[in-house]
């Protein structure tokens, strides 16, 4: 609690005691009015002063003025007790608002506590604590256990594990050693690291994320704009109605006191703050809950858009798949009688790896990785490469040179090799032959992320109607992946421009009022990301173009986070709707009842403060998202 809030607690306690005293002695003591007056002053002496000051500056319809007018009116018609209660509860409500908002601000600030305060710069072997802004590219910095990594860089000395939870939502620490890249904003856990800085602070991941998060609430949701527009007309209308109510009926019916009392109830309910506060508070909580899951949204408006996702379009490589080639199948042509199949597989792999031993093509690299052992260059002869078909070389085998060919089916045909069996699985197939005899084939494909199937299933469950894959890869390869993970449609052989056209086509067929999301890894995806209603970039760290173009960034490489984002967004939007309907509903009801004389000023106090407290309590639920119950206590 801040000092200001503590002072208010004391004032309100005193006011409540005086009010109780006033009610207790009412009618039995000639000075009972004095207790009410003191109670009123203790709770709200500053409100009329603020009202006067603001009117002098030209601000008329603010809540200070409304409260002053309402309570003065009540006092004038002799409803002293009510006047005090209105002021006391109004201030109590304000105190609660203040406290709740402060708490939310704090808990989100703690969540985003990734801003490094300093960097240990190494200058001529000496260490010096400086502002991260002062560090230049290629400077060396030292990061000790417990400290935040201040700038992006590469480890030059030492090893440690890093906690990247604040950045990615990933709870397992990541091990880093010499030569590994470290990301600013993560926390060094165990060892001392010496790091060569690769980017200035302004370009560092941490600065990018902070910028994104801090600006997020500047892009407002439709509901937020609606409620501020509503408040702008609501207050003047209610005030005008109050004036009419205070003057017109008594002209005909008399009984001024009763009508002024009812008009004062109107003024109490006319305060808009309660209504206005809960909406940004809910969205703020929703953005916070998402960022805790490693999902960054660039604005509250995108929470609304994500809640209404109808069509999700995926890029294939790097999004549904890892983007890394791997040998997924090794199929030797024959296994010798009584021989070990594993041995035959290993032999096939070794021949392929020997043939590919001097190439840096991703496929060659994946074959060597699959073998997992070094190849002695002395055993491999001259290499002849035929572009797009394969390679020929000679390999020293059992003391003699054998000729080995590895490549496409076409190459095998050209060499007159028979007995080729086409594989079942799709991907890039590499056939191998030795001394004119067919050895077998390898299938190399981009592997599907472990998380992909779960993501698709969860999105389906969340009500996403249509899931489409777009890929620059071959149609068949795309189809196979789409089928395996359970997507509805796939389109292959697309250039980046074609993807935009396809997304535009899909945008036209989505359901009314719903949205389309495009998920990509950010490489070549920028135009499509910005064309979709919600551009979703995955693996945000390190891919600047994607972070710029996207509306939502998933910091981890789990596509299933989209389903989490939908759940958070729907919850937030739901809370906002509940609050709008509830607050406006209760206020209107109280207005009608008060005008008809069925509601006292106490009901009006509930219509103002009670609604505000309930709406805020409801709004604070937005910060909570199922997976982390232990961290959500406020």
């Amino acid at each position, binding site marked *: 609690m801040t000092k200001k809030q503590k002072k208010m607690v004391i004032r309100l306690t005193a006011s409540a005691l005086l009010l109780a005293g006033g009610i207790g002695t009412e009618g039995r003591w000639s000075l009972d009015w004095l207790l009410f007056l003191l109670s009123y002053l203790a709770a709200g002496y500053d409100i009329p002063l603020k009202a006067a000051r603001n009117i002098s500056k030209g601000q008329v319809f*603010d*809540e200070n003025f409304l409260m002053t007018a309402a309570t003065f009116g009540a006092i004038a018609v002799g409803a002293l007790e009510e006047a005090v209660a209105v002021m006391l509860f109004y201030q109590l409500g304000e105190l609660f*608002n203040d406290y709740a908002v402060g708490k939310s601000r704090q808990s989100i600030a703690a969540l985003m506590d990734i801003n490094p305060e300093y960097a240990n710069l190494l200058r001529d072997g000496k260490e010096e604590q400086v502002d991260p802004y002062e560090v230049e590219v290629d400077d060396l910095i030292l990061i000790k256990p417990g400290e935040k990594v201040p700038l992006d860089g590469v480890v030059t000395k030492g090893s440690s594990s890093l906690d990247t939870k604040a950045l990615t939502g990933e709870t397992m620490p990541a091990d880093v050693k010499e030569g590994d890249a470290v990301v600013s904003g993560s926390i060094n856990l165990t060892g001392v690291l010496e790091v060569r800085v690769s980017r200035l602070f302004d370009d560092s991941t941490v600065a990018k994320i902070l910028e994104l998060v801090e600006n997020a609430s500047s892009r407002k949701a439709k509901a937020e704009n609606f409620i*501020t527009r509503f408040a702008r007309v609501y207050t003047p209308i209610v005030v005008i109605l109050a004036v009419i109510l205070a003057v017109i009926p008594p002209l005909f019916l008399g009984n001024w006191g009763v009508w002024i009392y009812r008009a004062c109830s109107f003024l109490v309910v006319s305060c808009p703050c309660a209504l206005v506060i809960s909406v940004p508070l809910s969205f703020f909580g929703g953005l916070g809950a998402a960022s805790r899951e490693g999902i960054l949204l660039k604005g509250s408006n995108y929470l609304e858009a994500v809640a209404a996702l109808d069509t999700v379009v995926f890029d294939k490589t790097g999004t549904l798949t890892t983007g890394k080639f791997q040998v997924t199948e090794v199929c030797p042509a024959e296994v010798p009688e009584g021989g070990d199949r594993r041995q035959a597989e290993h032999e096939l792999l070794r021949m392929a790896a020997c043939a590919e031993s001097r190439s840096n093509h991703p496929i060659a690299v994946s074959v060597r990785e699959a073998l997992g052992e070094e190849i002695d260059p002395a055993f491999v002869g001259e290499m002849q490469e035929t572009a797009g078909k394969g390679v020929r070389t000679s390999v020293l085998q059992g003391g003699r040179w054998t000729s080995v060919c590895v490549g496409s089916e076409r190459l095998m045909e050209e060499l007159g090799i028979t007995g080729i069996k086409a594989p079942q699985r799709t991907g890039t197939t590499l056939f191998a032959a030795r001394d004119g005899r067919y050895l077998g084939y390898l299938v190399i494909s981009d592997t599907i992320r472990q998380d992909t199937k779960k993501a698709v299933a969860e999105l389906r469950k969340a009500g996403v109607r249509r899931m489409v894959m777009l890929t620059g890869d071959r149609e068949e390869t795309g189809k196979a992946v789409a089928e395996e993970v359970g997507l509805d449609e796939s389109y292959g052989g697309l250039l980046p421009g074609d993807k935009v056209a396809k997304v535009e086509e899909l945008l036209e067929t989505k359901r009314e009022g719903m949205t389309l999301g495009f998920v990509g890894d950010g490489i070549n995806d920028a135009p499509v990301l910005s064309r979709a209603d919600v551009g979703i970039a995955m693996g945000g760290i390190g891919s600047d173009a994607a972070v710029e173009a996207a509306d939502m960034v998933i910091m981890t490489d789990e596509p299933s986070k989209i389903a989490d984002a939908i759940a958070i967004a729907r919850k937030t939007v739901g809370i906002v709707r509940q609050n709008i309907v509830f607050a406006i509903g209760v206020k209107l009801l109280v207005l009608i009842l008060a005008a008809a004389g069925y509601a006292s000023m106490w009901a009006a106090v509930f219509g103002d403060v009670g609604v505000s407290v309930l709406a805020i309590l409801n709004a604070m639920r937005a910060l909570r998202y199922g997976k982390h119950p232990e961290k959500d206590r406020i």
Partner: protein
Amino acid sequence: MKKIVKLEGLCCANCAAKIEDGIRKLPGVTEASLSFMTQRLVMEVEDGRVEEVLEAARKVADKVEPEAEFRVVR
């Protein structure tokens, strides 16, 4: 040019909306957004009018919410 201002002590959501509205109407401001929750005012200001706009914006904020401290972040 983008200017960011922190309004420390901004404690009324409706006032935030009023300030935002007032600043948006200032000459030289092409876009303005004030987040009540983060207390951050983000303005897109025409080049060369920064000083003038900041002064006017400070006045708008002071008129609506005198308690809030107007601090230019960058």
